[in-house]
């Protein structure tokens, strides 16, 4: 990557973050501000808040996250292959197909072991 790419990315990130933040600043100047204790309670359909909201979550969410990491890394490996795919020819194709086949075995494994079932 040349310097220009970096400049562009940095400018876009800065712009994307600054626009909301500046807008919030403007809103702060325009909007009224009079907090009352009632207003500052957490919303829970109008009834008093019960317990903490940061409770333990079902493990399924994390299992999906774990599976995602595996597959996402694997797909990231396919990207470089896709670019030079035409130059490498049949050999690379067969290798990639083996790679995908192993991925599929992983998916089938998770599926059969009922990891993908949302109870």
């Amino acid at each position, binding site marked *: 990557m040349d310097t220009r790419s970096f400049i562009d990315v940095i400018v876009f990130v800065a712009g994307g973050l600054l626009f909301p933040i500046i807008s919030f600043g403007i809103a702060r100047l325009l909007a009224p501000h009079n907090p009352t204790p009632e207003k500052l309670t957490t919303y829970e359909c109008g009834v008093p808040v019960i317990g903490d909201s940061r409770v333990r979550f079902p493990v399924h969410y994390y299992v999906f996250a774990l599976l995602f990491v595996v597959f996402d890394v694997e797909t990231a490996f396919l990207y470089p292959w896709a670019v030079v795919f035409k130059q490498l020819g049949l050999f690379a194709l067969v290798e990639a197909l083996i790679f995908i086949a192993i991925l599929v075995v992983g998916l089938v*494994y998770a599926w059969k072991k009922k990891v993908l079932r949302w109870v």
Partner: protein
Amino acid sequence: MDYMLILPEIILTITGIVLILLDLGLAEDRKGAVPAVAGIGFLAALAGLGPSVGQNTQVLWQMYSIDSVSLFFRTLFLAVGFMAVLVSWEYARRTKMAIGEFYHLLVFTTLGMMLMASTHNLIVIYLGLELSSISSYVMAGMLQDEPRSGEAALKYFLIGSVASAIALFGMSLVYGLTGTTDIVDAVGRLQLAPPALVVTAGLFLLAGFGLKVGMVPFHMWIPDTYQGAPTPVTAFFSVGPKAAAMAAILRIFVLSFLGLPALGAGWRLMIAVLAAISMTFGNVTALLQTNVKRMLAYSSIAHVGYMLVGIAALPPRDLSAVLTYLAAYAIMNLGIFAVVILVEDQGQAPEIDAFRGLAYRAPWAAVAMAVFFLSLVGVPPTIGFFAKLQLFLAAVDAHMVWLGVILGINSAISVGYYYSVVKVSFLRDAEGVPPVRAAWTISAAVVLLAVGTLVAGIYSDTILRWTASGVTLLMR
């Protein structure tokens, strides 16, 4: 062609995938076929080593070395994997472990270890390290109903991932300093790099792989993990991943860090001191244990210390002392664990007391156990003696007589705890202990390994020559 030379790896990969599919496809009561397939896979992979014999080349874009050192390690790992199948067969059935998972994890761990030992590219070493580590974390926790097994897995996982991270950081430093991940290429450029950074990189690598082999001061996870994990897994851990990490240390340190003139002497001394502390700590602590698995865990720390003697003594002598010791240790340690599993298969916890009267319950097993212990201590004519002798001679050649003396003293200390087990099995009667009913697999493993310990001792010359041939090459 390249693919013939990596045939064992290909066979193992296919075996692993077949095992996964078998695990999914077979009904619960037909899972007995799974270990058989794994065993056949290991044997086929051993046969697949054929084309690699006598080769000395680099395949797969210079990333994979096929030389006699890698041949040595690949043979060792495949044999260890096969033995692990034998010793776990009955155990897995009895404890209702998840058989499908266990055997494909075993296959993939072995594959990872082979990757680690047959390359001098840091990336591939790391790849193998992760493949073998991640599979083995799960293997340690295979007994789902045992809290201890879970504890073992968690400790192994936490320590192991820290170790991987540290090793990776060291590798990235080497890459940053040299611009290459190939150790052979890196050596020359490391000499030009700032010494402080080279030392840092070396320390990170040593710490990372030191955690994996479990040398002092990175040994703290060993006792809990070895005690909690299922015994066949412990048997496998104590020789397989340990040897793989040792192979990585050999490749990285022997090739680069110990070769650097500015650092060589200091590193040797440091490793020598660590070796002395490892063996003394391991042996003395083992004296206090009543659980045989835990005792053997401490003993394994001591044995890592012995192996480090060979590395500390390296420059004047060759690698063959370390390699011979690794092979000897694999045979005798697997053997002693096989006996422990045999006793456990009778439904007893692996306390020393469980060995009561073993000589009357199963004389052949008791004799085999005695052979393994003699070998672990280093008594002739077992293989342990010849291997330890090589280490001693290496230390003397390197003008580290003090290290040799410590080695000898430690061997004497180790008699203390090994004897405590032998004593109860020969001198106490078997009253109130059930008679031994051994499955053929475990008996075969015990007998094979006992014969190996004796015969290999007698033919130790051949082993020496074989290991020595690869060494010149690794040393260049």
